[in-house]
C-alpha cells in the first residue's frame, strides 16, 4: 500500500498557554483547519481517531469530539499509546481506508497540561514511590545514565540535540520557545533529575493538532492541492517498566523503524529530513541508533557538530520539536514532516522528497514511525 494513502490536510491551534480552552474546543479548531487545508467538507468524514487527553480523561471521549464536530463517523474512537498514539492512529486510519471501512479520516489530538493538570506526568510509576521514584523525567534519566555509562555518551552530545531544536524553533514563528540555546548555556542548565537538565526536557504545552487521511485516488478526485503520500509506517512496543526491562538502551524504535522502512522500500540513507520525538534529548539520540542511521552507541557522535541542524547531514526536528515548538506530543512532528515534503517549512530542506517522523510514548514503551514522500 506504499503511497496509496495520503495526508491531505493539516491544522493546528496556537501552542503554549491556552487557558480556558477545553480539549474538545481545541480538537474542533484543529480539525476545522485541517479540513480547510485539504479543501474537504466535514460531511465527507467517516472516520475519527482521537488521542485521549492526559489532562482531562473522559470515557467515550471520541463521541464527545464527534458530537462537537457534528459528524457521525462509521469508525473511530480514542486510542492510548501515550506519545506514540498519533502516528499509530494515522496507521490505523490508513489500514481502515485500505479495507473499505472508511474513506476520509480525521486524526486529532488536543491536550492542556500547561494550564490544566499535568498530574499524569508526575505520578509514581508502579509501587515504587516509597523510594522516591516519581515522574516521567526520572525514567528517561535512568535510561540516559545507562547509555552514558555504557557508550560514553556525553552531556555535550545530549546538548547538541537541544541546541539544534532551539535553533530551528527560533526560526519558526509558531514555536512556543523561540530563544536559541548555546552549548555553553546548556552546560549550566540546572539539573532536574540527573543526568537530565532542564534543557534536556521538552516543553509543557496546551494545544491541538489534526490531519486528514484519505486514499491518493480520493485526493486526486477531490483535487486536493498538496496531498503528501504515506510511504511506510510501523509500530513497536515493550511492556516492561524501566526497572524490569532487560536492556535499557535498546527500544521499540528498532522494530517500528524496520517495519516502516520495509514497507517504504527505503533505508536510513534515503531519508533527507527527520522529525524525531524529543520528549527528552536522549530519545532522538537512541531513535537514530535504533532506526539504523548509526550503530548502537554511536548516536552521541552522530548528532555532534551541527550534523542534525539545518544544512547538516540529516536535519532533525526542523520546526523545533517538543523542545521548542510545542511539548504537545507528536502530531506537530507529523505536520512538520508534511511541510517538508510540501516545501513550506520555515526551515526547509531544499527539494526534500523523503521525510521521516517518529512518535513514542510512556518511558520508551511504545513507538511508531511514519515515512512520507513526494
Amino acid at each position, binding site marked *: 500500500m506504499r503511497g496509496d494513502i495520503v495526508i491531505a490536510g493539516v491544522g493546528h491551534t496556537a501552542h503554549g498557554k491556552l487557558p480556558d480552552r477545553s480539549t474538545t474546543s481545541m480538537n474542533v479548531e484543529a480539525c476545522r483547519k485541517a479540513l480547510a487545508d485539504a479543501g474537504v467538507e466535514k460531511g465527507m468524514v467517516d472516520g475519527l481517531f482521537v488521542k485521549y487527553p492526559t489532562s482531562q480523561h473522559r470515557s467515550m471521549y471520541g463521541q464527545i469530539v464527534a458530537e462537537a464536530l457534528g459528524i457521525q463517523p462509521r469508525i473511530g474512537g480514542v486510542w492510548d499509546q501515550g506519545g506514540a498514539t498519533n502516528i499509530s492512529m494515522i496507521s490505523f486510519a490508513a489500514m481502515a481506508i485500505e479495507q473499505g471501512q472508511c474513506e476520509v479520516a480525521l486524526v486529532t489530538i488536543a491536550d492542556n497540561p500547561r494550564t490544566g493538570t499535568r498530574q499524569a506526568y508526575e505520578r509514581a510509576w508502579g509501587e515504587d514511590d516509597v*523510594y522516591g521514584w516519581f515522574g516521567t523525567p526520572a525514567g528517561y534519566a535512568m535510561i540516559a545514565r545507562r547509555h552514558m555509562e555504557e557508550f560514553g555518551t556525553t552531556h555535550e552530545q545530549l546538548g547538541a540535540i537541544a541546541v539544534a531544536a532551539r535553533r530551528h524553533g527560533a526560526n519558526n514563528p509558531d514555536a512556543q520557545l523561540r530563544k536559541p540555546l548555546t552549548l555553553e548555556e546548556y552546560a549550566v542548565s540546572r539539573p532536574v533529575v540527573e543526568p537530565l537538565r532542564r534543557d534536556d526536557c521538552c516543553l509543557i504545552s496546551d494545544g491541538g493538532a489534526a490531519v486528514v487521511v484519505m486514499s491518493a485516488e480520493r485526493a486526486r478526485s477531490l483535487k486536493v492541492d498538496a496531498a503528501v503520500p504515506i510511504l511506510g509506517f510501523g509500530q513497536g512496543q515493550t511492556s516492561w517498566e524501566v526497572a524490569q526491562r532487560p536492556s*535499557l538502551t535498546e527500544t521499540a524504535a528498532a522494530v517500528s523503524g524496520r517495519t516502516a522502512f520495509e514497507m517504504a522500500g527505503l533505508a536510513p540513507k534515503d531519508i533527507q529530513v527527520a522529525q524525531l520525538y524529543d520528549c527528552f534529548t536522549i530519545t532522538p539520540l537512541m531513535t537514530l541508533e535504533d532506526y539504523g542511521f548509526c550503530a548502537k552507541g554511536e548516536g552521541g557522535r552522530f548528532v555532534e557538530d551541527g550534523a542534525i541542524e539545518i544544512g547538516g547531514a540529516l536535519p532533525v526536528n526542523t520546526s523545533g520539536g517538543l523542545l521548542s515548538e510545542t511539548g504537545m506530543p507528536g502530531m506537530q512532528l507529523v505536520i512538520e514532516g508534511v511541510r517538508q515534503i510540501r516545501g513550506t517549512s520555515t526551515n526547509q530542506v531544499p527539494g526534500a522528497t523523503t521525510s521521516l517522523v517518529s512518535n513514542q510514548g510512556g518511558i520508551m514503551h511504545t513507538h511508531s514511525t511514519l515515512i512520507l514522500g513526494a
Partner: protein
Amino acid sequence: MSEMPEPGITPVNQPFWTALERGELTFQRCGSCGGAWLPAREECPRCLAAEPGWEVASGRGRIISWVVYHHAAHPGFADRLPYNVAVVELDEGPRLITNILADEGDLGIELPVVVRIEREATFSLPRFSLA
C-alpha cells in the same frame, strides 16, 4: 516533615513486606518453569502458571542504572534532596527500584551491591550499599 508515601500492601505482595520486617529480601519464583521476578504478581509472566512461590534472596546484586533527584515530585522527599534512585538486578535475576546508600560520585553501572534493610516509620525497605 510531610507525610511519606506508604507501600500499597495487597494480599498478593504482603509476603514481600512481611519478610522485610524479619530482615529478609524475597522474590517470587514460578513453581512450574522456575522463572524469577519482582514485583509480586499472581501469574508467572514467562509461562503464565499461577504457581508463584517466595524465595529468600542472597541479597547480592549489581547496579543497572541510577538517577539523582534535584526536585521533589512529592513533598515528603524535599528534605532528602538530592537523593538517588537506582535499578538493581539481584544475582537471582529479578530487578527492583531501590536507593543506594553511597555518595553519588562512587556509583557506577555493574558495581556489586548488597542489601541493607532499613526501617522507615511504619515499614521496612530494601536499600543497597556498595559491596
